[in-house]
């Protein structure tokens, strides 16, 4: 009986020792929420990272807008908050905004409404509601009420647009608020009188308006000639550590990641 007990004890011990490394080797899960502008880039980068690191981590991607991401990471609900806006003084403390890429914000109109160029005063007049008819916009081939599509307050694109294009001017209160880039894109694509602003990756099926005479293209964004550039961030609570640190390092330094970014966005280096 004693031998049987010893054997049983040894077997149980072996089982425990075998189980410990299995638990220790469990893949970490990196959860991110936030910017709808960053989400398409994040998903593509995650796909590349999984291939490069042989599925060393698990990813979970949520959205909601930049403010949601910043709030989520500050409260420890996610590992990374994706933000397409710069840090605000009102953001919770101890957040680290890790820049990952640059992005162009394009002014878009319906495909039949090609405008040669808009300067900052022109953008402010349209989005501020000073000009309400296309006949008042120099070079516009159409007339009729301008339908302004903007983003909701939680959006980083909204924040960046305000900062880069509008300055201290307020956006027209009659503007239609949309929850994502794609919604603005589809609204403008389906409305001959529509105007809005989106991330460069969302310009299919609409016309982009040159800003200060420079077209909103990837080439002009990369060269620095286009003025409507903002930064994408992966926000962490304190300095990134462990798997999250490796992931951010891959995004910011790995050549394969830079190649992914360069497809529709502007790499940092």
């Amino acid at each position, binding site marked *: 009986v004693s031998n049987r007990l010893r054997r049983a004890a040894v077997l149980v011990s072996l089982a425990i020792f075998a189980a410990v490394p299995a638990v220790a080797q469990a893949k970490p899960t990196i959860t991110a929420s936030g910017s709808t502008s960053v989400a398409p880039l994040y998903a593509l980068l995650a796909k590349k990272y999984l291939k490069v690191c042989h599925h060393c981590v698990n990813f979970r991607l949520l959205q909601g807008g930049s403010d949601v991401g910043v709030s989520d990471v500050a409260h420890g609900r996610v590992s990374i908050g994706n933000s397409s806006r710069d840090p605000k003084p009102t953001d919770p403390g101890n957040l680290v905004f890790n820049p990952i890429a640059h992005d162009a914000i394009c002014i878009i109109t319906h495909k039949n409404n090609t405008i040669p160029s808009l300067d900052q005063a022109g953008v402010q007049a349209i989005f501020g509601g000073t000009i309400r008819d296309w006949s008042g916009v120099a070079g516009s081939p159409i007339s009729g009420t301008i339908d302004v599509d903007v983003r909701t307050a939680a959006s980083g694109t909204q924040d960046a647009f305000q900062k880069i294009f509008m300055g201290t001017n307020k956006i027209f209160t009659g503007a239609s608020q949309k929850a*994502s880039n794609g919604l603005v*894109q589809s*609204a403008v694509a389906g409305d001959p009188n529509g105007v809005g602003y989106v991330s460069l990756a969302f310009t299919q099926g609409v016309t982009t308006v040159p800003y200060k005479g420079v077209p909103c293209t990837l080439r002009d964004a990369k060269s620095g000639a286009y003025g409507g550039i903002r930064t994408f961030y992966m926000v962490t609570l304190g300095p990134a550590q462990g798997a999250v640190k490796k992931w951010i390092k891959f995004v910011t330094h790995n050549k394969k990641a830079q190649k992914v970014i360069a497809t529709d966005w502007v790499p940092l280096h």
Partner: protein
Amino acid sequence: VTKMRVGVRAHSRWRIALVIGALSVACLIPLASPGAASASTVVCGGRLKFDDNLARFTGLIYRFKCTENILAFSIVSSKQIDFFNPEQLAYFDGAGTLGSGELFSCEGPLGQGFGFGCDTRPPALGMLAGHTLIGELSFPESPCVKPASDRPHLWLTVTTTQNDVNGKPYTTSSQPFQLGGAKCKGHIPEAQQAGNGNGKRHGHRHHRHH
């Protein structure tokens, strides 16, 4: 004996007719009674196609349409998905026009996941009946494995608004609808073709061994 056989046959026919009649009535009762109406009357159909722009051998485009307006949808796969497009952009009506205000934001696991969910963010309306949603996803490896029975299967469930017997609206989920498989012709990586060949040989050896 012949009379008896005829009699037995006639009796059997009567019994079969009776069973069929009873089953028909049983099936019709729930349809006729509003109180026992089905939870969701929506019907969706869709299929998969290779997406060479995303990834030649592993990227797929899924497209589907439904008979009713949908508020949200989920796609579930029998094999792991390592990518999905988080924002769906193209919603075409029958005339090929991009639908306005019809958009879904998608969320879920990347890499280890077997599916993802896409919801509508107000003021978006979801997708209207008869419109087509087009999205992208990819697998870590080519889905065109052999035998064909081992290829991944994908199902779609949608969330719709239905009315109860009093006409009061409620939100419910549909049954799963299987998406039609992508045609593998021209999308099997050469390495995999060779690999499958080896696999077959191994398989034969395995059987012989046993």
